[in-house]
């Protein structure tokens, strides 16, 4: 056991470091608030950095060379990510497009579509988003109802999508629709790529309880999509969507929300007074710090174990599936504890008054979203139980029923 690079990794890392040292500073700028991705200046900078990476062969490191990738190893992607992460670079707008949309396109698209879209996405010319969830269908994605109807060489789409990060600046989107409500839910779906500037397509921001607006809802009113933009056969959209979903965990969008962890808690505990002195001397606080510490370290070293497998060219074990279901509640608990230590001042959001520039109360407001977005605690436990431990799926009552006959509540 050790924490060193292999010689090959070390060589690659050196190369990456040199590239970053030369090119990154120009694009790295301090973050100036949540609304950044709604800002044209930020997007221009982001496109520029993506183009630099593409020009140097660092966009699509693990992609096949035929699609413009580098044909590299997963560990090289990791090394690049580690080094890139040391700069404050505007990479977020491309995570979904390159991590999920292009993967889906490369697997299911016609050669023409691939040729047309992969290059521009890789070079940062076109930004992509994902149009899957609906108000009626979150955890149960196959329950969507946005309707697509074929008319000649086009499809007419009506409905509403939700939780679409980047939909307000994206050029293109991947879209799942229901083309046939008379068959069971998984069988009547059709998948498209859609030009986000299409008439009748309207994104609106969703305000979160933290005050931020990372997501959009997107309304479709008689949006026309040429049939050539369909991926997979009509009614076979679920199979295409599964490709996207399988790539989802590799491309989890990281919002730049404030989030507290053990180091923040230690800083707070050293600086705040409880009944008998500094919180760090209070045994109850100490026990909780230890509890959180072993979770944080456990997650960190779980990640190291995954990297070890990648570095050895092996498939990582299932242990990485514990990440969010452990970290999201932990974040919420740490935020609550930090506020409790502040006692009567615990609810303050003012950076000048609340400890650590209100990091705990700010995190408290974003934590509920963290426990839901990208898979609720409950869905993630189901996934671990079924995919990792091999336990049976929940009893399904919706498998063989025509979609239009399924009960939907309101």
């Amino acid at each position, binding site marked *: 056991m050790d924490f060193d690079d292999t010689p090959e990794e070390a060589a690659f890392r050196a190369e990456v470091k040199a590239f970053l040292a030369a090119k990154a500073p120009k694009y790295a700028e301090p973050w100036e608030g949540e609304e950044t991705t709604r800002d044209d200046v930020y997007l221009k900078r982001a496109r520029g950095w993506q183009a630099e990476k593409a020009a140097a062969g660092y966009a699509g490191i693990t992609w096949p060379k035929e699609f413009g990738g580098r044909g590299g190893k997963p560990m090289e992607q990791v090394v690049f990510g580690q080094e890139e992460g040391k700069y404050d670079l505007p990479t977020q707008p491309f995570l979904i497009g390159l991590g999920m949309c292009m993967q889906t396109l490369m697997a299911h698209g016609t050669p023409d579509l691939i040729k047309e879209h992969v290059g521009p996405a890789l070079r940062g010319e076109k930004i992509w988003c994902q149009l899957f*969830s609906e*108000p009626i*269908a*979150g*955890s*149960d994605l196959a*329950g969507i109802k946005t309707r697509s109807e074929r008319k000649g060489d086009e499809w007419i789409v009506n409905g509403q999508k*939700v*939780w679409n990060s980047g939909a307000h600046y994206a050029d293109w989107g991947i879209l799942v629709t229901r083309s046939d409500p008379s068959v069971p*839910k998984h069988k009547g779906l059709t998948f498209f790529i859609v030009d986000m500037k299409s008439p009748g397509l309207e994104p609106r921001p*969703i*305000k*979160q*309880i*933290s*005050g931020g607006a990372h997501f959009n809802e997107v309304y479709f009113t008689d949006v026309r999509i040429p049939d050539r933009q369909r991926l997979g056969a009509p009614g076979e959209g679920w199979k295409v969507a599964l490709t996207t979903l399988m790539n989802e965990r590799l491309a989890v969008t990281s919002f730049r929300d404030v989030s507290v962890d053990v180091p923040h808690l230690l800083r707070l505990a050293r600086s*705040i*007074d*409880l*009944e008998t002195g500094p*919180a760090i001397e209070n045994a*109850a606080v100490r026990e909780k710090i230890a509890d959180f510490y072993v979770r944080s370290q456990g997650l960190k070293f779980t990640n190291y174990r995954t990297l070890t497998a990648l570095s050895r060219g092996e498939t990582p074990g299932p242990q990485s599936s514990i990440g969010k279901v452990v970290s999201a509640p932990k974040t*919420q608990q740490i935020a*609550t504890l930090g*506020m*409790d*230590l*502040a*006692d*009567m*001042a*615990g*609810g*303050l*959001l*003012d950076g000048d*008054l*609340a400890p650590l520039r209100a990091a705990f*109360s700010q995190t*408290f*407001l974003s934590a*509920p*979203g963290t*426990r*839901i*977005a990208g898979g*609720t*605690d*409950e869905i993630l436990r*189901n996934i671990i139980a079924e995919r990792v431990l091999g336990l049976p799926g*929940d009893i*399904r*009552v*919706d498998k063989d*029923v025509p979609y239009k006959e*399924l*009960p*939907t*509540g*309101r």
Partner: protein
Amino acid sequence: MNLDFSDDQKMLRDQARRFLDEKSPLKAARKILESDAPYDRALYKEIAELGWLGAAIPESYGGLGLGYLELCVIAEELGRAIAPVPVSSSIYLCAEAILRAGSEAQKQAYLPKLASGEIVGTLALAEKAGVPRPDRLETRLEGGKLTGRKIAVPDAGGADIAVVAARAGSGVSLALVDLKGPGVARESERSVDSTLKVGGLGFSGAKAEALGPSGEGWTLLQTVLTRAAVLYGFEQLGGADAALAMARAYALERYAFGRQIASFQAIKHKLADMYCLIELARSNAYYAAWALSSDAAELPLAAAALRVSASEAFDFASKENIQTHGGMGFTWEADPHLLLRRQVQLRHVIGSPRAWKERLVAELERRNAA
């Protein structure tokens, strides 16, 4: 054995619930959340007219003199409705401090106005993040003048008078100060729950009168906070109950995988856990209400236990209500966050539950030693 409210008290509860359902649905709270208004003045006026503010204030001071059990009943409903009014600051804290510590003249001067809603009062203690202690107070009362700065004062923006904990000589005194007088600066503060806004109060030689004997301020303060803990506990209980009701309603109407999400054990057991915590809190609340209304020796212990129990119930219920709502739960547009915010405000306003756990065990040990 009688650990329940009387039929009259239950009738008052039903009336209060109906009134608040109509006059202060959650959108009333949302309106204050999204505005700069310190509180809902129209609603407060109506509440005052119903006599709620004076429920536990003696008739000789302009109240109804009903008693604390009635005030507990009202508190639960205010909590359930997350009503955006300063009842807690003005009545549980300020009026209570004047009742416990004030001279006859002070009671005559202020209680009728607080009971009628003509003025709003509050109490100011915290000066920085962390647990307050007599030796940590920097606000000073000297020669009838108050100097210092308080933070996170509930309803600071809407209050007319404040009871202020301050050092006086070598001890702590309570001071009563007119917030509209000279030498008082109000500072708005952002906090999680803007439906019950908090603020800063800066005093630069503001005129203040002593409330209660000099040097006994800390003891008086503990008495007031202990009594207020019972009433805040009922507000927390009502809020927790509202969160369970909201989660239950959503789980029954939301479908996934072709079934109500309420049919999944993960949801069923989550709501069952909420129910257990809420019933524990309710039972602790009824006992504390008895102790408060009968001035029992058990009050400090019962109040601390309720504070811990109700804080835990509302914390869990408000968070897991959001979780039950899924994506919708963390949007500004949906209602669950209103309960989460109120939960935070009620959890911290008179000190967080961890501090009350410490008080609880200290009280257990004090009784054991006695």
